[in-house]
């Protein structure tokens, strides 16, 4: 393009300029200061990442830019300017027209009653006044640009007919339909599987190089809690903590050389698949400060490992290109966030299998009772002849995308669901379909969602007390209370918490209560079903460390289920990779994370957005009907051999001691794949 050189040198033509933005919400206890003096700016053609944990105020910033805060919120800013327009007054006219938005859950933002086409075309008709036929044609082009196959057909379909990734592509297309100058992305990939996330990220990456009409270039604001995604996509990063901007600068500077203690802590708390088994994670202790009465000094001070005198003073933002709000930034520049020590030495793992499952299967029937009666029901084999063993004191990590059957497998191992087929034995004894109290006592479970895993009408003491009494660990009230105290000590919660109700606890504390309840009968085996997935990174690290310590201290074995391969790589001794109901690869963590690996494992690993790695994702292979009888991954496999993969069930190949891969591709060829970390360029 002739104007390329000109538009590349746009320097101070920031399309968005925010200075000292403050937002407060009225609440029963007074004003809640959600955002406190935040400043940011975005130049055309660049991407700014806004990073922070829940409660940091990042979504409030997005709503403020859109003028969607609601009339009760109090909004103040020295400057809130978009391309020369004052957003305080003109936000309503600009949003959807020149400022596009993509929210986390495209399933909720797309209207289920309207076709995809109607929703993509509408912004063009309303904002640009495009004629219907022309807009429809443009919509098809847009969908094609978003990498949607058969766009003309998709235009006529309804949102529920599309997969999650496709819906998000449509959401992006609808946001771009009115040709905005600024695109706000609020956790755009958080609800997606990692392989789909990688595809959306490369789509967004392409968008920023895209040129709009008249040589304008799209600016993007990416709101995310995921530092890997931010690193993949953003030119610069701003870190928010409890409503205040604590650090901002270029992505490389902030993520590779963080200056603010909070940024350091966040990075140290992140379980990273490229640094597996790098010892313990560094959690950030404490919780978010009181937003009703903001600390005039540094509000991170109570949780900060570097706090000293002077922190109670209001902190100034210093630095030109790499700004930081901390008076000690210069003195601590080379000191990493401290890592706490393990409390107990690991207990030796026994060689006798504790849990042994052979050919476990379960089928979920679809269709009504009539189909079932007539034997016409197809049904889905959610778990398809899975065999695995877990030894005492061992952590088996089970990883896979949503819907692959990993949670169902966890429930089968606990006999919470009736197995269609297969055997299960525990401590060398077979477990019946309706297990006895002894099995129940020894095999327990920790759930993902700490909000629904605790009965809201019971205090922590009652919740733990019920488990203690049920298993007759103690029966007299005084003894029960002693036991409750012991459990709370074990998960490092104050004993006074026994009198609290779940809603009075933070997410991490609730998860600790869930763990304490699972430990009440002193089990030997615990299924952790996405036990840390709903937690913020800083809290997740603390819970992961706790689980690891408890394993070392008590010799408990875990089946650790997670979609996050970083978490799995951090905690697991052995890893099993699951795809559509079957385990495609199993082995020691070190073996699974390097070649030879199953093509699906390779896809999972290379899809993880890593800090310091820029790479493009391969386009997904053309969709074929899923194989019947053959390899279930054949339709997505980059290395598919041919009809063999579609029709013949793949054999289980032994790649090493305890390392098995279910694939047709000969081992030497699998071993010849490059290491996933080396694929793509590393910065």
């Amino acid at each position, binding site marked *: 393009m002739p104007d390329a050189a000109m538009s590349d040198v746009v320097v101070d033509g920031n399309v968005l300029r925010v200075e000292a933005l403050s937002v407060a919400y009225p609440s029963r206890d007074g004003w809640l200061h959600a955002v406190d003096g935040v400043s940011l700016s975005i130049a055309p053609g660049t991407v700014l990442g806004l990073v922070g944990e829940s409660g940091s105020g990042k979504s409030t910033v997005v709503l403020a830019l859109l003028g969607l805060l609601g009339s009760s919120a109090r909004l103040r800013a020295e400057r809130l300017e978009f391309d020369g327009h004052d957003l305080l007054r003109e936000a309503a006219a600009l949003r959807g027209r020149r400022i596009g938005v993509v929210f986390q859950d495209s399933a909720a933002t797309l209207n289920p009653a309207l076709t995809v086409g109607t929703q993509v075309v509408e912004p063009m008709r309303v904002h640009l006044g495009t004629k219907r036929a022309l807009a429809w044609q443009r919509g098809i082009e847009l969908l094609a640009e978003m990498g949607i196959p058969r766009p003309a057909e998709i235009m006529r379909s309804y949102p529920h007919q599309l997969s999650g990734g496709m819906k998000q592509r449509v959401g992006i297309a609808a946001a771009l339909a009115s040709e905005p100058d600024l695109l706000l992305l609020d956790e755009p990939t958080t609800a997606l599987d990692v392989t789909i996330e990688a595809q959306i990220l490369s789509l967004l990456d392409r968008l920023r190089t895209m040129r709009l009409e008249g040589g304008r270039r799209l600016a993007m604001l990416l709101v995310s809690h995921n530092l890997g995604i931010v690193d993949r996509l953003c030119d610069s990063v701003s870190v928010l903590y409890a409503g205040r901007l604590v650090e901002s600068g270029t992505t490389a500077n902030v993520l590779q050389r963080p200056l603010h203690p909070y940024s350091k802590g966040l990075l140290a708390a992140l379980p990273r698949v490229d640094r597996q088994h790098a010892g313990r994670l560094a959690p950030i202790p404490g919780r978010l400060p009181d937003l009703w009465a903001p600390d005039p000094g540094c509000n991170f001070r109570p949780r900060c490992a570097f706090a000293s005198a002077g922190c109670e003073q209001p902190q100034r933002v210093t630095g030109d290109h790499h700004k930081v709000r901390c008076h000690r930034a210069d003195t601590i520049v080379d000191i990493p966030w401290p890592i706490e020590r393990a409390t107990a030495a690991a207990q030796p793992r026994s060689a006798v299998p504790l849990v042994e499952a052979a050919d476990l299967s379960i089928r979920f029937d679809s269709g009504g009772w009539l189909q079932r009666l007539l034997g016409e029901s197809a049904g889905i084999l959610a778990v398809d002849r899975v065999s695995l063993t877990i030894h005492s004191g061992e952590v088996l990590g089970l990883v896979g995308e949503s819907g692959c059957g990993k949670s169902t497998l966890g429930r089968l191992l606990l006999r919470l669901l009736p197995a269609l087929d297969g055997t299960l034995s525990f401590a060398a004894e077979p477990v019946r379909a309706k297990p006895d109290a002894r099995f129940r006592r020894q095999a327990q479970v920790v759930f993902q969602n700490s909000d629904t*895993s605790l009965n809201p009408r019971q205090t922590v003491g009652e919740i733990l007390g019920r488990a203690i009494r049920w298993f007759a660990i103690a029966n007299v009230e005084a003894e029960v209370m002693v036991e409750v105290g012991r459990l709370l000590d074990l998960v490092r919660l104050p004993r006074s918490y026994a009198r609290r109700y779940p809603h009075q606890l933070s997410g991490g504390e609730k998860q600790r209560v869930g763990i304490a309840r699972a430990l009440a009968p002193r089990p030997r085996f615990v299924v952790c079903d996405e036990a840390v997935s709903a937690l913020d990174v800083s809290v997740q690290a603390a819970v992961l460390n706790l689980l690891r310590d408890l394993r070392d201290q008590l010799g408990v074995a875990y089946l650790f289920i997670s979609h996050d391969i970083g978490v799995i790589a951090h905690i697991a001794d052995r890893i099993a990779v699951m795809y559509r109901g079957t385990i495609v690869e199993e082995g020691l963590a070190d073996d699974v994370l390097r070649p030879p690996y199953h093509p699906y494992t390779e896809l999972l690993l290379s899809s993880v957005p890593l800090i310091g790695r820029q790479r493009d994702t391969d386009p997904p292979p053309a969709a074929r009907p899923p194989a019947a009888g053959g390899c279930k991954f054949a339709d997505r496999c980059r290395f598919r051999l041919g009809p063999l993969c579609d029709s013949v069930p793949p054999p289980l190949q032994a790649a090493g001691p305890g390392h098995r891969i279910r694939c047709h591709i000969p081992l030497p060829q699998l071993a010849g794949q490059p290491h996933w970390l080396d694929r793509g360029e590393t910065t």
Partner: protein
Amino acid sequence: MTAVARSPLRLPSSLVLGAALLGLIAAAAIVGIWLTPYDPAAFAVRDRLQPPSALHPFGTDEFGRDVLSRVLAGAHLSLAAGFGAMAISLAVGVPLGLLAAFHRGVTEELIMRAVDLLISLPPVLLGLLVLAVTPPSLGKTIAAVGLVYVPILVRLTRAVALGLLQEDFVQAARARGEGAVPILWHEILPNAWPPIIVECGLRVTFAILLGSALSFLGLGPQPPASEWGLMIAEGRDFLRQAPWICLAPGLSLCVLLVTVNLVGEGLRERLDPQLSGRAHA
């Protein structure tokens, strides 16, 4: 009841007002009969069809009975019909609903199809069916009205329990090996009762109305009882000459219904999480 108003929990004003009025009506139903100088069943042929006066504030009926005394004496019948029927629906409907939610399959199908059958009949017809075959009485009216509202409570309880049974804390109880009774009693019921109570509070109004309607049709308490519906039925013939005979019990019924509705609305405001927002945020 008024002590509740001083509670620091800031109760909804409709609940406070409704509860106060309901307390007043209940008190009138219990002690009111001793405050009037007339026996509600005593005939006084000489004073028949007297308009309201200082002696007879609500006038007298065709037998010369004091209408105010009769309205007061009948209050407990309406209250009993409403609350008694609700108690019966609760006692039958909630356990059935829990059972249907916990034992999916044959048990659930049996209970729910029986409920469908009941719900397909109009309430008055259902009441008529129960009452027509045997001689009517207050107890049977209560039972009949109670039966009418059983299906609603079964469905509600089942729906609420089905949602709760999916929750992880119930899964945790199952992982401990707990059976139906401990799970339903400790985990489900404490969480299920707010919507059930709210529903009951709103349904009592309809139960009272239905009870009176059945009485009006002669299927409730028999003369000389002074059930309000029955009084309206008896006063019908004198509507032109002595409208107060119908008006007094009719207006009383209105006041009672509004009062009970206030309490129901208040309970809903207080207990429904969608209306009260996050009370403990």
